Structure formats: structure tokens, C-alpha cells
């Protein structure tokens, strides 16, 4: 088949109706939805996402699909998981789904995280639902035998997401909170700087927060540490057609526009613009 390196073939994706197995709160803010999904949507890679056709509920009529990063996938078991916070018409609709209901999903979409062999010691830094996006990455890191440190930021310790899950993947988990000031940029700079000085960081992974992005860009530039970030942008189609979800990136001395859904959602930390 014709192949143009400038126009790489999109990864296969499919539009299917998955069955809701469970959909319940995991704490005061977040809900976990598990779906039974067919094999054609389960060849996922950490960092990829799905576009969910959220049901209408009450006055909410979400017209467009909602992008949602994958929290967990298991092709052998036929399972797909999403962790979400009710934040608008789409997620309000998702929260109404009960076991046995169908949910139309499109995916897996986008380009996920990379994990070059020389990245032996990985540091994950994220806050809130951003940690959900990094969960499949932590699982892969364990499978690949990488050393993993997860810095989980939250308002309070009891709101830190997925810490047990990260521990189950063999990660050293460090919870930092607004409550005790340990989540401040200054505290994190000292914490991460200490790990870098000890030679314990080959690469960073993060998701979402502009504040964390700027800190990791600063530390990465100062110490020559690469890394990747999963980014968000409002989307319409999710597969590259509509060009709604562009963001600006700094590449050399140029600013370029890239589609978060197609060239991303994962990008080099050094090129991302907060």
C-alpha cells in the first residue's frame, strides 16, 4: 500500500456500542465506568483516548462526542475503563448510565506515550483526573521493567487519585497536597530536583496542568531530561477531520499548530505551550 511518511496512516479505530458493566462513584468527585467492549477497540496504547457519544439526560443534549482518556483496558478480558468527574452536559449524561446500558464509543484514537529503552527511571507528575490518563502508562512501565515514581497532587490527601493503583504497578507514590503546601511549585521543584540530583529521573510524564508543565519544562531544560505530556483541547470529530482541536507548539524557533486528536494527545514536554 502507498505510504507517505508525511501523511502517516492513522491507527485503526472503530465505532461500536459497548455495554456498561458498572458506573459508580470512587470518591466524592470521581466516577469509574467499566465497559464490556469488543476486540476491535481494545488494541489500545497508553495515552490514547476515546470519543464517547454521551446520552441525553434531562435538559442536557450533548450533541458532540466527548473525548475521554483511557483509564484501563484489557483486551483478553474485553474490558475498557474510564475515570471521570461530572463537569458538564456530557459527563452528567454518562453518570446516568446503568449496568446493561449501551454506550457508543469511537476509538482508540490519537498517538499515545512513547517509552524509549533508555528511559529507565520514569517520573510521573500529575494532578486530579490527569492521573487517570497516566494509569495505563504506569501499567506498561511495570511490564517493561522500568523504575517508576508517581507524584500525585491533590487538594487534600484523601482526594489523591489512584495512589493504590500506582502502588500496585510497583510505583513509589508521593502524595503532595495543597493542604500542607507540598503541592506548591517551590516544594515540587525541590522534591523533583533532589531526585534528579540523585540520578533517579530519566524522563518525565505529565498530563493537563499548565503549572506542572512549566515546572517540568524548566527542570527538563536545566538538566537535559526529556518527557511527554498528554494535552487537552476542545474537540469535534476526534479523528483529524475538523481541525478544531489545534494547539500551538514551539519547534525550534517556529510556532506550529498541531491537532491534539491526531498528532497528539501526547506531545514532547519541551515543545508544548502552556
Amino acid at each position, binding site marked *: 500500500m502507498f505510504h507517505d511518511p508525511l501523511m502517516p496512516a492513522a491507527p485503526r479505530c472503530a465505532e461500536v456500542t459497548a455495554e456498561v458493566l458498572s458506573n459508580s462513584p470512587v470518591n466524592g468527585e470521581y466516577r469509574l465506568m467499566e465497559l464490556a467492549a469488543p476486540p476491535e477497540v481494545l488494541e489500545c496504547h497508553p495515552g490514547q483516548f476515546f470519543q464517547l457519544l454521551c446520552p441525553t439526560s434531562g435538559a442536557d443534549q450533548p450533541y458532540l462526542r466527548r473525548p475521554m482518556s483511557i483509564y484501563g483496558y484489557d483486551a483478553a478480558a474485553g474490558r475498557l475503563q474510564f475515570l471521570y468527574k461530572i463537569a458538564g452536559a456530557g459527563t452528567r449524561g454518562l453518570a446516568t448510565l446503568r449496568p446493561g446500558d449501551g454506550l457508543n464509543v469511537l476509538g482508540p484514537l490519537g498517538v499515545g506515550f512513547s517509552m524509549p529503552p533508555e528511559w529507565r527511571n520514569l517520573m510521573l507528575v500529575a494532578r486530579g483526573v490527569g492521573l487517570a490518563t497516566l494509569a495505563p502508562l504506569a501499567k506498561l512501565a511495570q511490564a517493561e521493567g522500568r523504575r517508576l515514581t508517581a507524584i500525585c497532587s491533590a487538594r487534600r490527601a484523601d482526594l489523591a487519585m489512584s495512589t493504590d493503583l500506582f502502588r500496585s504497578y510497583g510505583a513509589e507514590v508521593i502524595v503532595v497536597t495543597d493542604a500542607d503546601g507540598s503541592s506548591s511549585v517551590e516544594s515540587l521543584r525541590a522534591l523533583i530536583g533532589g531526585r534528579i540530583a540523585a540520578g533517579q529521573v530519566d524522563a518525565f510524564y505529565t498530563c493537563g496542568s499548565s503549572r506542572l508543565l512549566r515546572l517540568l519544562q524548566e527542570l527538563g531544560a536545566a538538566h537535559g531530561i526529556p518527557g511527554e505530556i498528554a494535552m487537552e483541547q476542545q474537540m469535534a470529530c476526534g479523528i483529524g477531520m475538523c481541525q*478544531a482541536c489545534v494547539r500551538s507548539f514551539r519547534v525550534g524557533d517556529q510556532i506550529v499548530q498541531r491537532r491534539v486528536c491526531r498528532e497528539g494527545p501526547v506531545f514532547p514536554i519541551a515543545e508544548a505551550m502552556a
Partner: protein
Amino acid sequence: MSDLSTKIGRLTLQNPIMPASGTFSEDLAAVFDLDRIGAHVLKTITAETRSGNPTPRVCELPGGMLNAIGIPSKGIDYFREHALPFWARYSAPLVVSISAHSAAEFATLARAVSLPGVAAIEANISCPNIEADGKAFAMSPESTEAVMRALRGATDLPLWAKLTPNTGEPIEVAQAAEAAGADALVVANTVLGMAIDIESRRPRLGNVMGGMSGPAIKPIALRMTYQCARAVAIPVIGCGGIATLDDVLEFLIAGARAVQVGTETFRSPTVMLRLIEALDQWMAARGIGSLDQIIGTIAAEADEAARHWGAAS
């Protein structure tokens, strides 16, 4: 299997379902076999590279969405060197949508894209974002005729004129395009609109105004398709809010020889395949052998009523 083929001037399409420009790209090849649809209508290209509008570029509304993408374009060289070779693997006719700021620039671009592998040119003379305050060539018969004449002189390929629903003179504009040599009309494009976030009091689009699309605009596009199909002899291709088989049939009955499906592909990338299958089954169940038994078969009393609205007879 019914015969779903339809003729748009000298082009024969295997079925009447094709994408609307801007809602279709090579990325869709990851989802289904693109040779199953009637034609491939590409996103509008311009001669120069354009980065497009600031974000947010889309905003969701009940029954549809607003967009102000701003025609980001990699320019004509990229089209020739990368897009055209990609599409050459398919046998569905390739329709290249073009836009420019003047009749002369339109003509130059039409000449440049008149290449082997291109089956037709769709002149996007209606995109409401590209000109100041949403003005476009297809707002008036005079500017429509001028730009279509320039295009006609520049290419021998079939020329489709994509009209705007924002004009108050749809019939005159359609007739002007026909008189200037258009081979078909695409009716229509997005409806110029706006939305405001009441908390921030900011427009919900980075470009302030944008084009409304989706099921909410279907009655407008259907009305204009009906008006135009009555007013011209060239084929009309319906476009605007089409999401279901009933929508497709309404446009065909109103006089469209084919339809373009746009925004619904954002909700369901496989919708065009479902529409083709549903149309086939609907025709087979009724013993309808060809689309000619559907196209333009609107009940006669509509014609009488249409005269009261000042529609051409």
C-alpha cells in the same frame, strides 16, 4: 440491490451519498473503506498556506454546532505533492474544494488544481468565515456570476458552485451560477451564527461569528434545495443537517440528485455507510429500481404553494 447511481452532469456517482467539504479527510480511512461512498469531497484548499482561526473553533448547540475553523490550508504545493497521490488509490471521483479572495485568484487556483485525478472542482464561494463579517461571493447574483465566469474560463473540469443559505436571493444566485457555466450547485453551506458565554460574556468562538451546521439547519437547506432545483436545469446537490435516511429522501424528493453529509460524520464517522445501506433497503422494500423514481417527485400541490412564495416555476 437497487441502482443507487446518480449523474451529476457528466460525472456518474455509484451512489448519491458523499461527504461535505470540511468534514472529510484521509484520517477517515482508518474507520472504513472510503471507496464505498459516492464521491470524495476534500476540505477547501487555498493557494497560500493559512493557519486558521484562534480557538475555540467549535461550539456545541442544541441540534448542531457552530464552527469558525478558518480554512487552515497547507497550500497548493502540498495538495499536489501529498494529498493528490494519497487519493489516487481510490476510484470514487475526487472533488477538490477551493477558495480564494478574488475572482482572479479563484481562476488561478482552479487552473492549478485541474490535474489528472481530479474529477470536479467545488468552488466554495460561500464560506462565511473567510471574508469580513461573513460576506461571501454567493451573497449576491452579480458577484456569483463574476466569480463563476472567471472559473469557467480557467478549467474544463466540472464546476460545482457551493452556495450560501445566508443570501436573501437564493434563486437569483443559483441562476447566476448556472448562467456563468456552473455544472452543478451544492446547496448549501453553514448558516452564519453566534453564541455567547453568559458567565464570561465572551463569544463562544474565537472568531466571534461562525457557521451553524447539524440537524438544526436542515429545514433551511431543504427549503433552499427545493427553491434552487426548481429554478435551474443543472443538478443540485443537497447539503445541510443530513443525518438520517428520512433526511436523504427529503432532499432527493425536493429535487437534489445527490446529498452531502457533513456534521453528522463528526458524531458518527460511519454514518455515510449506514445511509447508503438504508437507502438501498428502503428502495428495495418499495420496488423502486432507480433514484429517478425519487428525485424531484415532490407532490404537485407544493408547486402551487411555491408560487405564492415567489419561487421560480
